[in-house]
C-alpha cells in the first residue's frame, strides 16, 4: 500500500518508456492495493463495532439500533482516528486509477503519500503511548508512529517488489533488466532506512512496554516480543542475502527468480511478525504487570490499586465450592504495607455482602481460611484494613468466580 509513494515512482522513472508488460504489472498492483485497503477498512469497521459492544457491555444489535456505535465513533479518540483512517483509505482507493496516469513528480502523488501515512500511523494515537498523559507519552508516541511507518514502507513494498520481479523474470523484453536493477537498488535503500528506523523505535518501545530485561523472559508479553525479534532477525538475514549476495549478481541468469523467491520468503516472515503484533496488542504490556511470576491456574486474582496502597487478592480455588483467600498489601513503591487488622468482604452477584476477619500469616499476608463460594459470576471483593490508629485503607474491585468443575 505504501508503495504508492516510494517504489512506484522508482519503477516508473526506471521504465521511462511504458511497455505493455509494465502497464499490466501496474494494473495487478492496483488490485493488490485496493484489496489491502478494503481489508484494512473492513477490519477497522468490525473492530470499532466490537469495541462499542465492549464499552456498553450490551449486545451489538442493540447498540447499533440505539446509535451507540456512532457515539463511540464520534466521541472517543479510537473512533475519531478510525474515521479519519477510513476516509483516507477511501480517498486513496478512489484516486488510484488517476494516480497511475499522473507524472512521477506530480503534487497528486505527494497527496497520496500523505493519505498513506495517515492510514499507517493512525493507530499510534489509540495505543498505550497515545493514552499516556503529558510529555511522558510523547516520545513513545513518536516511536510508535515511526515504527508503523517504517514497517509499512518495508513490508508494504515487498509484495509489489515481488510482483515486479515475477514479471521481470517471465518478461522476455531486455529493458526489464534496467527496470529491475533500478527498482532493486531503490528498494534496498528504502529497506536500510526502514530497518534502522524499526530497530531504533523497536528498542525504544520495548524499553517502555516491557520494562526490565527479566520481563522479556518472565512475561508472555516479553516472550511474544522475543518471537517478534526472532522473526525480524530472520527477515534481516533474508534481506542481507538479497542485498549483498543476489543484488550484485542481478545480471547473472536465474538471479531474478531467486530474488523473487527470497522476497516472497521475506514477505511471509513479515506477515508472521505482524500476526505476533496482533497478539501483543491484545494483552497488557509487561511493564504494567506487577508480577514476574505468573498467577497459578484455577485461581481468582485481582490487583487493586490506589495511591494510598495496593492489594493483591487471591481466591483459591477460584470456583464454586469452598475456597481460601490470601490478601497482600503493598504501598505505592510495591513494598509490603503493614496493617493492624484487616477484614475481607465478598459480595456475590445480586446478593448480600459477607465479611470475615482475616488472620495474619507469618509471611505477612492476610488469610481467610474457609470461604463458601455459592455461585459463579462477577463477585465484588472488598478490603478494609486498619493501618494504624488513624489511617484506614479500603479498596474494592470485581473478581470473577468460575463455575464448579
Amino acid at each position, binding site marked *: 500500500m505504501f508503495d504508492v509513494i516510494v517504489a512506484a515512482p522508482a519503477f516508473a522513472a526506471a521504465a521511462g518508456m511504458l511497455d505493455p508488460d509494465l502497464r499490466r504489472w501496474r494494473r495487478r498492483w492496483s488490485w493488490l492495493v485496493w*484489496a489491502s485497503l478494503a481489508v484494512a477498512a473492513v477490519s477497522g469497521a468490525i473492530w470499532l463495532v466490537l469495541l462499542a459492544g465492549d464499552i456498553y457491555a450490551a449486545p451489538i444489535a442493540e447498540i447499533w439500533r440505539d446509535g451507540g456505535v456512532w*457515539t463511540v465513533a464520534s466521541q472517543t479518540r479510537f473512533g475519531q482516528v478510525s474515521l479519519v483512517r477510513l476516509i483516507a483509505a477511501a480517498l486513496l482507493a478512489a484516486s488510484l486509477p488517476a494516480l497511475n496516469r499522473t507524472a512521477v513528480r506530480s503534487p497528486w502523488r505527494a497527496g497520496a503519500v500523505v493519505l498513506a501515512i495517515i*492510514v499507517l500511523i493512525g493507530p499510534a494515537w489509540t495505543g498505550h503511548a497515545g*493514552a499516556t498523559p503529558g510529555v511522558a507519552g510523547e516520545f513513545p508516541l513518536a516511536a510508535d508512529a515511526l515504527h*508503523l511507518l517504517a514497517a509499512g514502507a518495508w513490508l508494504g513494498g515487498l509484495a509489489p517488489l515481488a510482483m515486479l520481479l515475477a514479471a521481470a523474470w517471465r518478461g522476455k523484453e531486455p529493458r526489464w533488466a534496467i527496470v529491475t536493477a533500478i527498482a532493486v537498488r531503490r528498494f534496498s535503500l528504502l529497506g536500510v532506512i526502514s530497518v534502522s528506523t524499526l530497530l531504533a523505535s523497536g528498542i525504544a518501545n520495548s524499553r517502555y512496554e516491557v520494562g526490565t530485561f527479566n520481563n522479556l523472559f518472565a512475561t508472555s508479553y516479553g516472550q511474544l516480543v522475543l518471537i517478534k525479534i526472532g522473526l525480524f532477525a530472520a527477515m534481516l538475514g533474508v534481506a542481507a542475502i538479497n542485498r549483498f549476495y543476489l543484488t550484485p549478481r542481478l545480471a547473472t541468469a536465474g538471479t531474478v527468480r531467486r530474488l523473487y523467491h527470497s522476497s516472497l520468503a521475506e*514477505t511471509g516472515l513479515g506477515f508472521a511478525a505482524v500476526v505476533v503484533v496482533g497478539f501483543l496488542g491484545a494483552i497488557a504490556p509487561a511493564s504494567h504487570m506487577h508480577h514476574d511470576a505468573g498467577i497459578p491456574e484455577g485461581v481468582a486474582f485481582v490487583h487493586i490499586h490506589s*495511591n494510598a496502597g495496593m492489594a493483591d487478592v487471591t481466591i483459591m480455588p477460584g470456583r464454586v465450592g469452598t475456597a481460601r483467600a490470601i490478601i497482600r498489601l503493598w504501598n505505592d513503591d510495591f513494598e509490603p504495607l503493614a496493617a493492624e487488622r484487616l477484614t475481607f468482604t465478598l459480595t456475590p452477584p445480586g446478593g448480600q455482602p459477607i465479611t470475615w476477619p482475616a488472620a495474619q500469616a507469618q509471611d505477612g499476608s492476610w488469610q481467610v481460611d474457609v470461604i463458601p463460594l455459592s455461585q459463579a459470576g462477577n463477585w465484588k471483593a472488598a478490603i478494609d484494613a486498619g493501618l494504624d490508629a488513624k489511617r484506614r485503607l479500603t479498596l474494592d474491585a*470485581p473478581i470473577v468466580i468460575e463455575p464448579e468443575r
Partner: protein
Amino acid sequence: MRLRVLILSFLAMAFGSVAAHAHAMLDRASPAVGSTVASAPREVSLTFSQNLEAAFSSVRVTDANGARVDQGKPQISGNTMRIGLKSLSQGTYRVRWQALSVDTHKTEGSFTFTVGGR
C-alpha cells in the same frame, strides 16, 4: 503463483492491530484514598495513569446511606476527573469511578474518605 503473491500481500490488514493495552488506574485522589479530612471538601478530584475518554468515564460520590452527594457534571480533561460536592457533614463517603482510557480499556474502582471527627 500470482495468487500466492496476492495472498501473502494482504499485509495491510495488519496495520490495524497495534494498540498495546494498559488500563487507567487511579493514581492519586483529593481527598486522598482512605483519608480523614478536617473540613468538608468542595470537590473530589481524581488523577489517573492514562488519559480518559470523557464520554465514557464517570464518578459518583455517596454518603453512608448510599445517597448521592455529588452535584453537577463531572469535568474530565486529560487524565483528571473532578466532580463538585454538596456541603458535606461529618461522616464517611464513598467515591465510585468508572474510566475508559484513550487506548479503549475500562476500569472501575471505589474508595472512601471521611470528613471531620476521629
